C-alpha cells in the first residue's frame, strides 16, 4: 500500500481559477453591491429612503466616488433632506482590512437641502433599523408631552354649561382632609388610651395617700413609690411625644386645608377649559398659534440628536448591533472598540459646498466644514464639529460624545430667504412669512434641553383655506385681526429635560390679538368667569367649610385632652414627690430629685 499524498497538486489550477473568478466578480459587481448596501444601510439608519445613482470604489487609488446621492426627509413624504451631486472620499485602505472605514478627506459638491421629490421618501417602520424605530417612537411620544392650548373658537358664543362636580379637585381634596382629620383623631385617641394615663394617675394619688401614714422604715412602700414616680416621668415623656406628633399632624392638616385654595384655583381653570372659554392672556395665544410649529421643529432636532447618540455612542464598552440580513438567523454583531485603534467609521475632514433654497429664484450658496465624524467618539477622542458660513447664513454644530455624558448642540441662522409657510392650528389660515430671517438652535446636554426658534418676517401675508366654512363670530374676529398684521416676530424657547420639557412662545401677534379679543369680548368674558367661579364656589363651599370645621374641632379637642392629661399627670407626680420627700426626710442615702 503506497503512502497517501497530503496535497492534491492538480487542484491548484482550479483553485487559482476560482480565485480569478472571485476577482472578476468583485470587479463586475463590487460597485453595485456597495451601492445597494449603502442604500439599504442608510435607509435603515436614517428612517428615510437613501438613493445613489452611482458608486465607484477605486481601491488602488484609495478613493470612493458617489454621484447623485438623494436622502429623503423622514418627516415629509415629498421632500428631500439633502441631495448631493458628487461626493469624493479619499479613504485609508489599511483599515479596510479591519472592516473599518476611515475617510481622510471628503469633498461634497452641490449639496442641496429641502428639495421636492415626486415619490414618497418615507420608510415603513419595518424597513427601519430597530434603534431608528425606537428613536422615532420616543421623539413622537416626547412631542405629546407638551400641552399646547388650542384656540377654541368653534362655538362662536361663550357658553357656560353645568360642571361635573365629581371632577372638581377641591371637593375630593377637602373630603380627603376630613377623612385624614377623622382617622388622625381616632389614632391619637387610641394612642392616648394606650398610654393608660388616668389609672396611673389614680394609682399615684392612692400611693401618695398611703405615704401620708407611712414610716421611714416602710421600705417596700417607699421603693414602690419611687418606681411609680419613675413611671410617671416616663409617661410624661410619652405624653409629650404624643403631643408633638399631634402638633405635627395638625400642621400637616392645616397645610392640607391651605392647599384647598390652590385646588380651587385649579378648579376655576378646569371649569373654564370645560366650557370652551377662550383664554385671552398673551402667552397662551402665542402657544396656541405657533406652539405646534415650534414643537415640530424641536422634534426634528431631537430626532437627529438622539439618532446620533444611538449610532455614535459614547464609551468603550462592547456594543451590540443587529447584524446584516441573511438567509439564516442574523444574530448580533458585537463591536469591541479600543483606544489607539481605528474606529469603525471615521471621517477626518469634509469640505462641503452647500446650497439652500436650490429650487427658488434666489438660491443661497455657502461652504461648510465637517470634522471628526466617527462611530466611536471615545476612540477618536475629539468631538465632531460642523461649521458653515456664507452670505446671510451661519450654522454650526458640536457632537461631543467623548465622555460618558453626551453633549449635542447646533444652531443656524439664515437671513433674506423665503421662509416656509406656517399653518395655524384651529383656524383655516396659513401664514406665509415671505422673506425673512429664521434661527434655530438646539442643545441636548445629558438629558437637559435648550432650544430656540426665532422668526422675523417684515412682509407677511395670510392665506385662508377657501374651502373652509365661514366660522363663528369670534373666529372671524380673530381671522380679521391676524390678517391685518403684516409683520411677524416670533420666538419659541425650549427648556427643561427630556422627561419634562418646557416650551414658551411669544410673538408680536399676541398682544394685538389679546387686546382686540378682550375689547370685544371683555364684558362677556368677565360675566362668564364670575358665573363659573360661582358654580365652583357653590360646589366646593360645603366641603371646604367641613374641612376647616373638622380641623378646628380636632385642634381644640386634642389640645384640651392632652392639656388636661398633662396637668393631672404633673399634679400627681408633684404630690407623690412631696409625700415621698416627707417620708424619706432624715434617711441618709435617699434623695428625691
Amino acid at each position: 500500500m503506497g503512502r497517501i499524498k497530503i496535497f492534491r497538486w492538480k487542484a491548484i489550477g482550479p483553485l487559482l481559477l476560482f480565485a480569478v473568478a472571485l476577482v472578476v466578480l468583485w470587479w463586475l459587481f463590487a460597485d453595485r453591491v456597495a451601492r445597494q448596501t449603502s442604500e439599504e444601510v442608510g435607509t435603515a439608519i436614517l428612517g428615510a429612503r437613501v438613493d445613489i445613482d452611482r458608486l465607484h470604489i477605486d481601491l488602488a487609488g484609495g478613493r470612493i466616488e458617489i454621484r447623485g446621492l438623494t436622502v429623503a426627509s423622514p418627516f415629509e413624504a415629498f421632500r428631500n433632506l439633502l441631495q448631493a451631486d458628487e461626493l469624493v472620499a479619499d479613504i485609508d485602505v489599511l483599515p479596510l482590512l479591519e472592516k473599518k472605514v476611515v475617510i481622510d478627506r471628503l469633498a461634497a459638491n452641490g449639496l442641496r437641502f429641502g428639495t421636492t421629490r415626486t415619490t414618497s421618501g418615507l420608510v415603513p417602520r419595518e424597513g427601519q433599523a430597530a434603534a431608528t424605530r425606537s428613536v422615532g417612537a420616543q421623539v413622537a411620544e416626547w412631542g405629546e408631552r407638551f400641552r399646547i392650548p388650542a384656540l377654541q373658537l368653534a362655538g362662536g358664543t361663550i357658553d357656560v354649561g353645568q360642571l361635573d362636580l365629581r371632577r372638581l379637585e377641591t371637593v375630593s381634596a377637602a373630603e380627603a382632609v376630613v377623612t385624614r382629620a377623622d382617622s388622625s383623631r381616632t389614632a391619637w385617641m387610641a394612642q392616648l388610651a394606650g398610654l393608660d394615663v388616668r389609672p396611673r394617675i389614680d394609682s399615684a394619688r392612692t400611693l401618695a395617700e398611703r405615704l401620708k401614714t407611712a414610716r421611714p422604715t416602710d421600705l417596700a412602700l417607699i421603693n414602690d413609690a419611687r418606681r411609680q414616680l419613675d413611671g410617671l416621668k416616663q409617661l410624661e415623656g410619652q405624653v409629650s411625644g404624643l403631643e408633638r406628633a399631634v402638633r405635627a399632624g395638625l400642621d400637616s392638616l392645616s397645610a392640607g386645608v391651605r392647599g384647598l385654595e390652590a385646588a380651587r384655583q385649579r378648579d376655576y381653570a378646569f371649569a373654564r377649559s370645560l366650557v370652551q372659554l377662550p383664554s385671552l392672556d398673551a402667552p397662551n395665544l402665542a402657544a396656541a398659534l405657533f406652539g405646534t410649529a415650534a414643537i415640530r421643529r424641536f422634534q426634528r432636532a431631537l430626532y437627529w440628536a438622539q439618532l446620533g447618540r444611538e449610532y455614535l455612542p459614547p464609551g468603550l464598552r462592547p456594543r451590540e448591533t443587529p447584524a446584516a440580513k441573511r438567509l439564516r438567523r442574523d444574530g448580533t454583531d458585537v463591536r469591541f472598540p479600543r483606544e489607539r485603534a481605528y474606529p469603525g467609521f471615521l471621517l477626518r475632514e469634509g469640505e462641503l459646498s452647500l446650497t439652500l433654497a436650490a429650487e427658488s429664484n434666489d438660491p443661497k450658496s455657502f461652504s461648510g466644514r465637517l470634522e471628526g465624524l466617527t462611530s466611536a467618539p471615545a476612540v477618536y477622542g475629539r468631538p465632531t464639529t460642523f461649521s458653515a458660513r456664507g452670505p446671510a447664513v451661519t450654522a454650526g454644530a458640536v457632537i461631543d460624545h467623548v465622555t460618558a455624558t453626551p453633549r449635542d448642540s447646533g444652531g443656524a441662522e439664515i437671513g433674506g430667504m423665503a421662509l416656509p409657510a406656517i399653518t395655524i392650528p384651529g383656524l383655516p389660515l396659513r401664514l406665509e412669512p415671505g422673506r425673512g430671517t429664521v434661527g434655530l438652535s438646539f442643545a441636548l446636554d445629558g438629558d437637559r434641553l435648550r432650544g430656540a426658534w426665532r422668526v422675523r418676517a417684515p412682509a407677511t401675508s395670510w392665506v385662508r383655506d377657501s374651502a373652509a366654512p365661514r366660522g363663528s363670530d369670534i373666529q372671524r374676529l380673530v381671522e380679521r385681526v391676524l390678517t391685518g398684521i403684516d409683520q411677524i416676530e416670533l420666538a419659541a424657547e425650549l427648556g427643561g429635560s427630556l422627561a419634562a420639557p418646557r416650551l414658551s412662545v411669544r410673538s408680536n401677534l399676541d398682544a394685538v390679538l389679546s387686546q382686540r379679543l378682550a375689547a370685544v369680548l371683555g364684558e362677556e368674558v368677565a360675566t362668564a368667569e364670575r358665573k363659573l367661579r360661582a358654580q365652583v364656589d357653590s360646589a366646593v363651599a360645603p366641603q371646604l367649610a367641613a374641612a376647616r370645621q373638622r380641623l378646628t374641632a380636632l385642634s381644640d379637642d386634642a389640645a384640651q385632652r392632652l392639656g388636661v392629661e398633662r396637668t393631672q399627670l404633673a399634679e400627681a407626680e408633684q404630690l407623690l414627690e412631696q409625700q415621698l420627700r416627707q417620708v424619706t426626710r432624715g434617711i441618709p442615702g435617699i434623695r428625691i430629685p
Partner: protein
Amino acid sequence: MLAIVKLIQSIVKALHSDGTPGQVAIGLALGAIIGLTPLMSLHNAVVFGLIIILNVSFPGALLGIAVFTPLAFLLDPLFDALGRLLLVGTPALTPLWTELYNTPVVPLTDFNNTVVLGSLVTALVLFVPLVLAARWGVARYRATVGERIRRSALYRTVTASKLYNVYRLFRPEA
C-alpha cells in the same frame, strides 16, 4: 425533491469514492464546517481552499455540506446563544475579542457575530469526533454492505450522472 436526490447522490458517492475512510471522514468534517457556519464568511473560503488543495474526499466534503446545512438552520438559535455567551457573557474573553477585532483581516471573518462564532466553535469542537465517527462508519459500511450497493441499479444511475464526472476531477489520489 431535487435536494433529496442530490443528498442521496452525495452519500452514495462519498461512501464509494476512491478515498480511504480517513480521507472521506476529514472531507466530511471540513464540509461540516462550511455547512454549520454561515456560508458567506471568510473562514469558509479558507476551508473551501483546504478541501480543494488537501488530498481529502471531495464527495465527503459535499456530503458534509449537504447534511449539516439544514441542520445548521435548526441549530441557529443554539449557535446564537453560544456566540452571545462567548462574546458578551464571558468578560474574561473580552480582551481576546478586543485584540482580534482590532487585528487586520480577522474582523473580515465576522467572528464578532454571535451566530458565526457560535457555529464555528461548535464545528471546530465537533471536528475530531466527527472525523473519528465518520472514519469508523465508512470503514464499517465498506466492509459490510458496500459491495452489494456498488452492484445495485441505484449506484449505477448515480455514477452515470454528469456530476460524477466533476467528482472524478477531485477524487482523492492514492
